[in-house]
């Protein structure tokens, strides 16, 4: 008990050593350097060398461990199935080919925003990865076919004409929505616009972006108590889903399918000719069967499948690539949704991809467009997932001190990376893995952690109050962070956060920025996913003496409910660690304001926020409040 007390006291902000942590972007000892790095790192095409500067000072690479160690680990733990190692040379190639093409200005923002390369060290280490790891080995980008100048000019003219027609049709209808959007995103307007790519953004904003701006408000999800729409959806579906027998009345609006019978059905159809690309089909099956379940892995598998599909795609005659490919992707997506409802991160990735497809200039040849899309996907995976995870680890590592007792729930890849990295740094800490049936993901985590020599305690979620006294930090992953600050994550996260809150233990949620979503949600019922209910009745598979529910699952009075997600209220979460820094939950609103520019850059609005005097005031207020009210991690 005593050591715990002392560490608690230090969280109050008395110890100078610990006051350093927090909003690390501000604690830069050298503000001019920070400003410089911020301006240079934000979007310059030669960004590969300034990558460390774009991060906080806590990103100093650990001296003991060579850089590739981390990268290897990250890649290993993140990509169990099919990692996409985008080689630096390929990324540069793509960027270069984009830049030296002579199409119009409109496309610059598109390319340059993605031209921020990961550090050379990371990329080199990626190249070291054996290629055998890849199931879908990425093909090198094809050199674009050389057309004669006259030909290209002719094509461009034709496409411009057609685009004009489309624009005049759409601008009238979307004038209103555009207005509202400009009100909604004042922050992005205030960005320092000196950088060439962002400056060109101004020009492009007058272009047709109505199409993707309209998608800002996501269409209402299908409600499964709406019989009419469900019927319609069923006619279109490939997957033959049967309704579960004893449906829970409260969750009529969610799909409640009987599990376990459609997988063999789909597998048997594997070799049939389908409108679905085989790689997408494979991911769908994996997703359905639960072979892949971590949201990062799912997202990457899906993107890689789309990448394959785009590679094999050819535009039918008398159709444009933009529209046809978008509808194709939509078809794939609806197939995946039939397999299992998509997680929010996957939804965001799909939005990104569709956005990219829509923004492909018509002037581009098909192979060029495909190449640029493929490299976009690679970059998304690399920047938004792999590098983002590494950045999160580097932030979170500052929160791990010697003699800490860290608690985590189930198994999150980022949290595992944090533990690994802290262990490599030689920190002495103890991990409490809290698990819950029926998934028992924590067992795997315990296996891996113990194998690495990290001392662990394994317990189940009911016993969490027993251990919470001794815990100093709670690290958890998240499936998504909603714009009201709620954390949407695997079921049980809310319970853990609640108990930690009751015991005054800080809760740190690690979540990549690409998982943020502008949706708001107050409870866990309006939107959720229902797992296989029968799993509950055969819950301890190895203990036959406990199978009490085996014979009465068909009783009409009995319903089994296997929720997949829950929503943690924001006041239970002390801090969210993203790849753009560590924020309090209430700050997610700034993220969500910018979620429309999810695909450009978060760091600029974040930095401008941090550096503005108003924010300093807010921040200090925040500190005072948090010191007064509860034990928090206080920033300097």
């Amino acid at each position, binding site marked *: 008990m005593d050591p715990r007390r002392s560490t608690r006291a230090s969280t109050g902000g008395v110890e100078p050593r610990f006051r350093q942590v927090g909003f690390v972007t501000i604690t830069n000892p050298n503000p001019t350097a920070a400003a410089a790095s911020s301006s240079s790192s934000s979007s310059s095409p030669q960004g590969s060398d300034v990558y460390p500067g774009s991060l906080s000072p806590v990103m100093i690479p650990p001296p003991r461990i060579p850089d590739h160690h981390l990268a290897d680990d990250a890649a290993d733990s993140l990509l169990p199935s099919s990692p996409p190692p985008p080689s630096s040379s390929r990324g540069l190639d793509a960027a270069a080919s984009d830049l030296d093409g002579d199409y119009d200005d409109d496309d610059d923002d598109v390319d340059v925003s993605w031209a921020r390369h990961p550090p050379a060290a990371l990329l080199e280490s990626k190249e070291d990865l054996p290629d055998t790891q890849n199931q879908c080995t990425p093909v090198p980008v094809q050199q674009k076919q050389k057309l004669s100048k006259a030909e290209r000019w002719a094509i461009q003219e034709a496409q411009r004409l057609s685009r004009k027609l489309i624009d005049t049709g759409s601008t009238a209808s979307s004038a209103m929505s555009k207005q509202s959007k400009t009100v909604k995103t004042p922050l992005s307007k205030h960005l320092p616009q000196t950088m060439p790519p962002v400056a060109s953004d101004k020009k492009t904003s007058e272009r047709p972006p109505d199409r993707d701006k309209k998608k800002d408000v996501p269409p209402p999800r299908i409600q499964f108590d709406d019989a009419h729409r469900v019927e319609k959806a069923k006619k279109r579906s490939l997957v033959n889903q049967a309704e579960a027998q004893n449906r829970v009345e409260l969750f009529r609006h969610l799909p409640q399918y009987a599990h376990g019978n459609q997988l063999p059905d789909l597998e048997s159809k594997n070799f049939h000719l389908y409108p679905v690309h085989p790689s997408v089909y494979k991911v769908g099956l994996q997703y359905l069967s639960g072979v892949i379940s971590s949201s990062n892995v799912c997202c990457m598998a899906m993107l890689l499948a789309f990448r394959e599909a785009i590679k094999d795609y050819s535009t039918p005659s008398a159709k444009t690539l933009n529209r046809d490919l978008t509808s194709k992707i939509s078809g794939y997506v609806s197939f995946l949704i039939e397999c299992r409802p998509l997680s929010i991160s996957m939804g965001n990735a799909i939005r990104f991809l569709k956005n990219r497809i829509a923004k492909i200039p018509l002037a581009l040849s098909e192979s060029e467009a495909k190449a640029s899309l493929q490299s976009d996907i690679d970059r998304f995976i690399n920047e938004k997932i792999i590098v983002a995870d590494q950045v999160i680890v580097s932030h979170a590592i500052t929160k791990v001190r010697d003699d800490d007792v860290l608690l985590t729930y189930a198994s999150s890849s980022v949290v595992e990376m944090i533990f690994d990295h802290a262990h490599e740094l030689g920190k002495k800490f103890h991990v409490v893995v809290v698990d819950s049936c029926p998934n028992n993901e924590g067992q795997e985590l315990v296996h891996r952690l113990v194998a690495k020599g990290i001392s662990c305690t394994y317990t189940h979620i009911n016993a969490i109050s027993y251990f919470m006294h001794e815990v100093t930090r709670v690290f958890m992953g998240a499936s998504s962070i909603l714009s009201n600050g709620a954390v949407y994550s695997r079921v049980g996260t809310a319970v853990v956060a609640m108990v930690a809150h009751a015991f005054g233990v800080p809760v740190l949620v690690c979540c990549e920025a690409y998982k943020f979503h502008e949706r708001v949600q107050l409870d866990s019922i309006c939107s959720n996913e229902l797992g296989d209910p029968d799993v509950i009745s055969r819950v301890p598979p190895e203990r036959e003496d406990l199978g*009490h529910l085996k014979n009465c699952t068909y009783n009409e*009075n009995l319903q089994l409910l296997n929720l997949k997600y829950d929503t943690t209220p924001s006041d239970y979460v002390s801090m969210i660690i993203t790849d753009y820094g560590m924020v309090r939950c209430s700050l997610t609103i700034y993220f969500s304001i910018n979620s429309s520019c999810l695909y450009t850059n978060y760091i600029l609005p974040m930095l401008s926020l941090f550096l503005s005097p108003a924010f300093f005031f807010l921040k200090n207020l925040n500190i005072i409040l948090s010191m007064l009210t509860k034990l928090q991690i206080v920033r300097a």
Partner: protein
Amino acid sequence: MPDVQPLVREFVLKLKRRKVEGSHAVARQTAELLRSVVSQHRMGSTNQAAALADAIRGVGEQLIAANPIELAVGNIVRRVLHIIKEEDISSTAVGIEGLSVTAESDDEYDSENDDHPTLSAAVLAAHARNALRAPSLQTLLEDIPVSTALSRSASSAGDSDGKSGDKSSKSRKLKHDVIAAIGDLIDEIDTCYDQISEQAVEHIHQNEVILTLGRSRTVKEFLYAAKEKKRSFRVFVAEGAPRYQGHVLAKELVEKGVQTTVITDSAVFAMISRVNMVIVGAHAIMANGGVIAPVGMNMVALAAQRHAVPFVVVAGSHKLCPLYPHNPEVLLNELKSPSDLLDFGEFSNCMNFSTQDGTPLLNVVNPTFDYVPPKLVSLFITDTGGHSPSYMYRLIAEYYSADDLVVKRRSTSTSS
């Protein structure tokens, strides 16, 4: 008392080996054992009550040490000690009263005594309780009738022994009364379910949504009673890993036709916002109103508090423990086998890893109980009615005497 020792030893072994578990079974068996201890006890000539109490203390000490987590053992021992004290006081009071009483009620008493031996004993005990206690809510209104009824029966009792002043018959009287009172206690333990479930309809309304965790017989009977009164309601049962007693409860409820939904423990927070009331059982109720309950209950209580859902604990009065908890999560807890959580075969390879100083890398924690602080509890429903947590200390004062809190044999007294 050589005849009792084997019995005591057998029960101690049972407790130690966790052969008997659950406060109801433990309480009942403890009471039965103590009854036989009393009946085997050879009464001395002087200071009988103290000697008897000391014998009980001696046995109680062993029993409590055998399984300190089963607080019901200590409760019953203290109840019996209290009973002895009460009987002692009432018998001396009777002795004093008896001198000034006519013998006219003698025949009437005898006939009554033959027909309802326990009844008269109960009345006696009730009176004795009144004599010991300050006025309370329970006894506020029954004061007058009880005392009149008692003065008659007590006087008659006094009539038979008091005048003669025969020591042996008086000691037999004390012993007999104590045994009868313990019999009442056993009856009370047995009937607590009925008494509690009688109150069910007062608390469950039509279309109520109730959440419970794990399995408790009290909760089951409570819900059954409401169902029998034609209330229709819906129950969410959290399965209560790792013992999955919730499955058993769900099965029992479904057989009675109650609409039941089994949820995982982790979904408690998600579902609690749609729940009207949480009804759970308890392992023990502490004097401050805190509850020692099956593991996971603190989590449910916190979630209920967050959503302002009433958190109701149903428990028989044998679970009332006069102790105040200190660090109950650790000190009043019991760790079970890790094999409930992890398959030994699967994790045998993990057991090899260890640091230099020999401490294992992997700990598996599987506690049995959880402590719910009193501020999270909305209501206690015991067999004497509903009480708020802050009233618990008062209720406890009615059942236990303050100097019995530490059950320890007094070295100064002579044992028989």
